[in-house]
């Protein structure tokens, strides 16, 4: 069974490596600034100590004032996992960096978030609609969506 990694073990390493990249850190999740997300994710994946080689999922939450993009990654070798979150405060043109270059599994899920939330993933190789059809107006999973 995969054990959730205590965030405080990771935080110490990350603050040392990337000062100012963490916005806040909870009990089992770390909140990373959007512009340094890709560096932190690269570090988490490629460091042998963490070795997060498996991408569980990415999803997004609408908190009215900001969007939160939630990544769940885990390591098959070390048998641990962690939640990484990032926020984008711009509601008109929200965007976060894409992690497809690190984990191929993020490809379709980032397209789904782009389709249903309207969040752009910068650096995605094929960012286009996946569920809805061309010409659909609005973003159905946003809280303020009404027909």
């Amino acid at each position, binding site marked *: 069974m995969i054990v959730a990694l205590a965030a405080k073990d990771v935080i110490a390493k990350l603050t040392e490596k990337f000062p100012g990249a963490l916005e806040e850190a909870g009990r089992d999740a770390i909140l990373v600034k959007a512009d340094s997300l890709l560096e932190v994710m690269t570090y988490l994946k490629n460091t042998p100590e963490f070795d997060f080689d498996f991408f569980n999922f990415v999803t997004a939450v609408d908190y009215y004032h900001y969007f939160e993009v939630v990544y769940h990654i885990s390591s098959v070798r070390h048998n641990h996992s962690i939640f990484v979150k990032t926020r984008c405060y711009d509601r008109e043109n929200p965007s976060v960096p894409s992690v497809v270059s690190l984990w191929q599994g993020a490809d379709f899920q980032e397209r789904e978030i782009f389709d249903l939330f309207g969040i752009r993933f910068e650096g995605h190789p094929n960012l286009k609609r996946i569920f809805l*059809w061309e010409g659909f107006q609005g973003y*159905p999973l946003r809280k303020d969506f009404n027909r």
Partner: protein
Amino acid sequence: MEIESHGYIYSGDEIDRHEGEVIEATKAKSREAIPDPDAWLEEEVKRNIFLTTLDTAINWSRRSSLWTVICFPACCAFELIAAEGPRFDISRFGMEILRASPRQADLMITAGTLTWKMAPVVRRVYDQMPDPKWVIAMGACGISGGIFRSSYNVVPGYNKIIPVDVYVPGCPPRPEALIHGIRMLQHKIARSKAVPDLSELPNPFKKGDRQ
């Protein structure tokens, strides 16, 4: 019989001897030919001819072997599969065959929620079915969109896309309800008019009607 009473067979000679007895006994009681069990038909079949209309005969053949196209977008399909199976067994009514190709089918049972993205595909499947063809809207989603009616991507009822003959309510309908719906469709087909009136057809011998 002789050999079984011994319990054990010790040699091939005993088998041979038993075989000879069986053949001799069969031969002894097979001198006469067994009478043909269908011999009585020669007289009776003359009385079995009956007259009917072409409509009745065609409708009987149409409704008795409805072939269903596989178009099951969602969860009602499992009730349909149960109805297909041995417990409810809709092959009793002549329609156990599911066709993967709409070109070989004449009945569409719309088992499940239809999204707008799927709607053109369903319309295309329906258009590929040869006439005559019928549609059963199965379940709340098939009738009106069901609990997803107010959703942004769900078609509020199949009758927005294709003409529906019979509506089977339920969420999902029990297999008995589906079978009842199929029986209602069969009644509908039985009452329909299969042969057009000759006077309505274009007359090739009349000058104005020639095409």
